[in-house]
């Protein structure tokens, strides 16, 4: 027994232990007499270790009181940290659906130009930077008025000059709140020049148009209601040199031979004179090209 290696060699497999026996030993469930060979002492030791020791009641009372106090002082039962997975998925989908609907509705409204002017302007500017064209509020108004022709009728009724692309000028004091109004004002400012230009250019344009042209004849310097026009139709209300652009546009809608303003019909006589547009564009005008 003095040499451990010799001793182990004399007793091969003395301490071999299978998994099941090991588990039972560690549970303290093996009596020393029932233990595998060589493990009787181990079984007794582990069984003794597994038996509950004596309980210190005095220390236990103090510890229990401290535990109760700690439990009552603790926060209420916390909510589960993790939401149910299904709830997360549904919430995410709902948010995504609302976002998609909102963006779609906003995009459609922006494309139709039906958003409020400030919002439409912002959206148009922002989206325009990425190559998507959305009607600008100012441009949209101009085109709209020019399409429905109301501004022409307005002009026709009261005989005053209105913008060719803006809102009808009821009393001539409309604010230049859009592009059309601004250009209309520019047309008014160029009145004096138009008179002279009408006299100069009118005959040439009439010669180009070839029919019923009254170039320069009716262009009275005292006519405050007209701006300039170099060509028109034989309509008695319009077509005479010095007429406003929008009236000119109305006239051209009636007469295919007439010319229309080149930039929304809001140019002075010398600028739009002589330019003939296709019939499909007549009377429409629109935004500047």
């Amino acid at each position: 027994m003095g040499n451990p290696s010799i001793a182990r060699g004399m007793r091969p497999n003395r301490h071999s232990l299978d998994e099941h026996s090991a588990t039972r030993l560690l549970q303290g469930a093996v009596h020393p007499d029932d233990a595998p060979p060589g493990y009787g002492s181990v079984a007794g030791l582990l069984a003794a270790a597994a038996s509950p020791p004596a309980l210190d009641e005095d220390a236990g009372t103090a510890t229990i009181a401290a535990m109760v106090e700690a439990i009552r002082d603790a926060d209420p039962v916390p909510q589960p940290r993790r939401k149910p997975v299904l709830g997360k998925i549904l919430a995410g989908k709902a948010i995504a659906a609302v976002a998609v609907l909102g963006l779609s509705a906003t995009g459609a409204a922006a494309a139709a130009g039906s958003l409020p002017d400030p919002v439409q302007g912002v959206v148009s500017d922002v989206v325009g930077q990425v190559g998507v064209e959305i009607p600008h509020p100012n441009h949209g108004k101009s085109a709209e008025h020019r399409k429905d022709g109301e501004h022409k009728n307005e002009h026709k009724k009261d005989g005053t000059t209105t913008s060719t692309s803006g809102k009808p000028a009821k009393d001539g004091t409309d604010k230049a709140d859009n592009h059309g109004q601004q250009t209309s004002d520019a047309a008014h400012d160029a009145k004096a020049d138009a008179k002279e230009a009408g006299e100069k250019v009118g005959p040439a344009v009439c010669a180009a148009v070839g029919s019923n042209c009254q170039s320069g004849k009716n262009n009275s310097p005292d006519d405050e209601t007209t701006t300039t026009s170099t060509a028109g139709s034989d309509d008695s209300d319009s077509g005479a040199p010095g007429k406003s652009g929008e009236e000119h546009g109305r006239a051209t809608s009636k007469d295919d031979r007439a010319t229309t303003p080149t930039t929304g019909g809001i140019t002075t006589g010398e600028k739009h004179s002589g330019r003939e547009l296709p019939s499909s564009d007549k009377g429409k005008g629109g935004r500047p090209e």
Partner: protein
Amino acid sequence: MTTPATRHSLGEQFQGILAAAQEGGDWAVAILYRWLQPALVGYLRGRAGDDAEDLAAETWLAVARGLAGFSGDEAAFRSWVFTIAHRRLVDHHRARSRRVRTRSLVGDDGSGGTIEDGPAADPPGPDDPAAEALTAVATDEAVRRIVALLPADQAEIVLLRVVAGLPVEDVARITGRRPGTVRVLQHRALRRLAERLDRPEEL
């Protein structure tokens, strides 16, 4: 002989006791304490000696603070309590290691000393032949013997398996090892115990 799991089981009453304890019921807290305190002290005594009672009290206070958020069955509660105890034990060893280093450098009499790595281990060795002492040895003495005969990692696993009554999976989680590693270590521990107890003269 019954298994520790059966001997220390609260059975179907556990959930009701747990719910009452979570609401601060004295009687329920007392039942939980008396249920696991013996095994807890046995486990801690094998690793912390005389500090086991204090560590057990700290463990129970930590359990009380986290009891409201606990949910699980009896086995899960047992595993949770011993997990907290294991962490307290690790902290205890770290703190004791620092104290030992400081004391060794300065010396009790103010003179210089030697640096000791790790906690001061003073497990009592077996005084009597194993065959004679096994039948009469008390639980504490059995635990001390296990700790004295085994390396620290093997003793830790054996105590958690035998004294705490935890399955391999819980022991692996508490000690940060794989279940297979735990099985290997516990098998080596049993063989080592058998060899040492079979040849007490070699101790």
